[in-house]
């Protein structure tokens, strides 16, 4: 497909080879510790893991285990207190303002509550995924380059929203809104996708549809995915790798097929009921 080629080119520009097998992991996290205040409790207590170029990696665990915090540390929506986060060979924690913005535009993110701008059209929501690459003057007058507009229309077609381009985001159903969120993230031509509970606000059937769509697109564009999800069944169905968190510690890390019942019991051991 056309944008697949574009994507591969974009990746070479950034100095990353497009091969499937890569010796160096895309993301490497070492000894990650997070506490929201100096005196407060530690949410993550020393996490190590790596994500490879073809991973669809799920982070599972009970509520309050630190799943969301872990994902948000990668693009620094949450600031870590200790440890290293090496993404595309750069230490994310050491980036300054401008470097962080250039790094963030290479990271696509999909949110639990979609985080669309409700009073803006579907098209503008998708186009806003390109803002990191759009100059101040262009964005001020909302004049996006022709290739961005073409890509937005193509992506909207891919997620099945070609008939809703000019609707306001709040006119759509939950599943449709998350599809807009997916298109916005893919607008960035991301080199990694972070999913923060992408299906929690959706019903079980639509959850499966959305996850299938994300998986399909991630494979097509060869984007590694780090996905935090509380539905274990859905995680085992979609992901090839599972990281299990419990109370800020990593309790499991391995292929989805290797997951046994007792591993799950251990991850969810703290949970009452």
């Amino acid at each position: 497909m056309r944008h697949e080629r574009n994507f591969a080119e974009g990746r070479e520009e950034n100095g990353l080879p497009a091969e499937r097998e890569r010796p160096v992991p895309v993301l490497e996290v070492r000894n990650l510790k997070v506490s929201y205040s100096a005196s407060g409790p530690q949410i993550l207590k020393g996490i190590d893991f790596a994500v490879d170029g073809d991973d669809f990696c799920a982070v599972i665990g009970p509520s309050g285990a630190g799943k969301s915090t872990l994902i948000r540390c990668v693009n620094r929506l949450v600031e870590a207190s200790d440890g290293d986060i090496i993404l595309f060979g750069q230490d994310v924690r050491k980036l300054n303002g401008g470097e962080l913005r250039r790094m963030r535009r290479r990271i696509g993110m999909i949110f639990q509550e979609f985080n669309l701008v409700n009073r803006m059209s579907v098209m503008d929501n998708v186009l806003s995924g390109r803002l990191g690459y759009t100059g101040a003057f262009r964005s001020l007058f909302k004049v996006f380059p022709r290739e961005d507009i073409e890509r937005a229309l193509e992506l909207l077609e891919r997620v099945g929203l070609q008939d809703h381009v000019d609707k306001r985001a709040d006119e759509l159903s939950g599943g449709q809104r998350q599809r807009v969120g997916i298109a916005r993230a893919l607008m960035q031509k991301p080199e990694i996708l972070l999913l923060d509970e992408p299906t929690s606000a959706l019903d079980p059937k639509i959850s499966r549809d959305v996850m299938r769509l994300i998986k399909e697109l991630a494979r097509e564009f060869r984007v590694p995915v780090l996905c935090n999800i509380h539905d274990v069944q859905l995680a085992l169905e979609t992901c090839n790798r599972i990281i299990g968190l419990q109370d800020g510690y990593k309790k499991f890390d391995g292929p989805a097929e290797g997951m046994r019942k007792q591993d799950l019991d251990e991850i969810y051991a703290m949970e009452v009921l």
Partner: protein
Amino acid sequence: MTAISADGHMPAPVRRWSRYKHPRSTIRFAVLIAVLAFLSWSIAFLNIDLYRIIGAFPRLWEILATRYFPPDIDYVLDDSFLHSVLRTIEMSLLGGFFGVVLAIPLAWMAARNITISRRIAYPLGRFAIMGSRSIHETIWTILFVTVLGFGMLAGTLALTVFCVGFAGKLFADELEAIDMGPVEALRSVGASNLQVFQYAVLPQIRVAFTGIAIYTWDVAFRAATVVGFFGGGGMGWYLKRTTQQLENTRVAAILLTIIVLVLLAELASGWLRHRIAKMR
């Protein structure tokens, strides 16, 4: 915990609950009593004579009827006075416009959730808005008149400062109540601060801001009638001259004009804001 045995050998524990828990409820009650006590003490201290208050109304009526009636309508229909009315409206529009334009960036700085920097911009924005608010518009007029001399410029500046304080506070409150989800999403896309403001914040507050801007103009118009009294230009100056010369029927006519105009401004702004609120 004591379990309730099924065969009734052990008595079931008595379950107790009271809406009023000791320390919290007692403190609340004490505070309420203290406030009421202070209020009644203040009233007693004022030494209010009920008969004088009741007697004041007939006297007020008598004075109005004998000295201020009939209002000198010809005076307010005079060309020079009508010009001053027009200038008052101009001042309120200019002051309102510049005030709102200045208030938007200041409110952005002074909104805790989306400010550019919490250490520098936030206190600066807060201080600017608070400073404009804490000094009354008549005092601003007197200050600007002493610096710039009599006339519309001083009045317009005083109204601008007043509007910065008035609209800035309301804008900042509105900004602090926005949904942070889209802001987070656009930050994660790598958008700059200005882009985040334009694409994630502005769509959420555009309607509310328009309503506040119109309301600001309405309040600025009311303030503009007073600004003239202290030399800031507009119809207030006529009010000052006629009161000082004890031309009571003219004062009555001017006051009536102000009441009618403020009423009209309020009706217009209310109607406009109602129309805009529907666009949400």
